């Protein structure tokens, strides 16, 4: 079994259709307001006058993000109850029988992964579809993606296969938690002044 299960995300082929988001909600029966996988719509650029003409450098790309089952999970380190714990294969899970719903993990996680469930009074987040993994199947979001932009595998093998992992905007410095995700950057991900266009869809998780 893999020692460090990780996601692979290809930002250059993601169309932003949000099927992964919906597949996750469906698989985990998530209520309104609970979005364990979110798609960030990044865009920037504009029109610039060049002599007598106008030229544009508009760009846009998407980033699909859930819990990254970090190698150094700041959530688990700070959880007072040890409800957050790491399996041998690297999956970071929440034990609902221990969680007190203090939401400290929501405060600290730089990926907005843990989300409070008002019905249970506890936290929920992506568990990498651990039940499917145990049955030898793929996570729901991975299989649902029509662009094949998502995948899972061993972190080191994914890195070997795809080269480096680019922690593109709007992700935080990967040194904070060592996230288990390998990202293939969109070619326009290095453009200046990007911004997230669908804040109202993704910001509530804060």
């Amino acid at each position, binding site marked *: 079994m893999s020692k460090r299960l990780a996601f692979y995300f290809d930002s250059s082929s993601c169309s932003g259709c949000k099927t992964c988001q919906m597949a996750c909600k469906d698989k985990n029966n998530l209520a309104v307001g609970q979005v364990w996988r979110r798609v960030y719509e990044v865009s920037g650029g504009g029109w610039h006058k060049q002599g007598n003409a106008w030229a544009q450098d508009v760009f846009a790309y998407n980033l699909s993000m859930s819990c990254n089952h970090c190698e150094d999970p700041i959530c688990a380190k*700070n959880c007072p109850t040890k409800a957050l714990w790491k399996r041998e294969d690297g999956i970071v899970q929440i034990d609902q029988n221990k969680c007190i719903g203090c939401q400290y993990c929501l405060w600290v996680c730089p990926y907005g992964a843990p989300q409070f469930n008002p019905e249970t009074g506890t936290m929920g987040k992506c568990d990498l579809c651990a039940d499917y993994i145990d049955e030898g199947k793929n996570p729901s979001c991975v299989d649902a993606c029509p662009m094949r932009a998502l995948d899972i595998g061993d972190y080191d093998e994914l890195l070997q296969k795809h080269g480096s992992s680019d922690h593109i905007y709007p992700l935080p410095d990967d040194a904070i938690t060592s996230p288990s995700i390998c990202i293939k950057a969109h070619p326009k991900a290095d453009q200046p002044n990007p911004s997230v266009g669908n804040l109202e869809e993704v910001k509530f998780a804060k």
Partner: protein
Amino acid sequence: MRNKDWSLVFFTLLSQLSVGIVLWLALLAVFFTGTSLSFETGFSPINPVSIALGLIVIATVSSFLHLGNPSNAPNALNNLSGSWLSREILAINVYVLSLLATMLLGRYSANSEAMTYMLLLSSLAGLVLLWMMVRVYAIPTIPSWNSWYTPLSFGASTICLGLLALLMFQHTGVVHVDSQTRIGLTILLMLILLIEVASALFNQLKLEKMHTGIDGPVFDRGAFHTMFLLRAGMLITAFVLVFVFIVNPAALPGNSGHTWLYAMLALIIAAQITGRVLFYASYFRLGV
């Protein structure tokens, strides 16, 4: 700030008031010989030690309102090796036990030396609790909390609220301090108010430059900015009132000492609450 954070506003302020009271009692008992702690023997509900105990109990109950699933609360001590929140909860228990012991000692023994030692022990437990509380907010992904301002503002609240309680105890005759000590304490209160205004200003300037990966600057406008200005106004007005109180109380209109004393108290308490609301509202995390 989320609605649930109100319970944390009251938890932190009430526990800091409790620690402040015990800290000042211990300091008075050790360093100020002109002080008499009339509560040292016997039991009374207005005994400052029982008030400090009551406050920390109310604070703890208030913190429970923040939990989504309090029935799992015994698990909160599971991660003493890694989580400052676990350690904070342990520190609350130790502090409560030390106050309980101090109160029982006052109830059954007239030994003032033993009482002084117990007060010192309790204030040490209180300071440990205060430190744990600061560490809970030293989160690398939340730069607005992970700063010099958190220990400074928590420490200033502890000293300020403790001093206010002490002045009230003096006013009601529970604790007697000589007039020189009282003036010294009042001047210290003014100093703390000044430190609070100056540090809040520097912190605000720092906050105004912060923005998250996906969000623009949010602290230089709107309700947050208005509340910051309002609080600075409250602190400065309280400072002026305390100053006039010491230098020339007769200059106060109406010449009613009590009214102005209570007005000053209300202003400082309101400034402390507003300060803590601003603290929680200043939450912002790196990343998405």
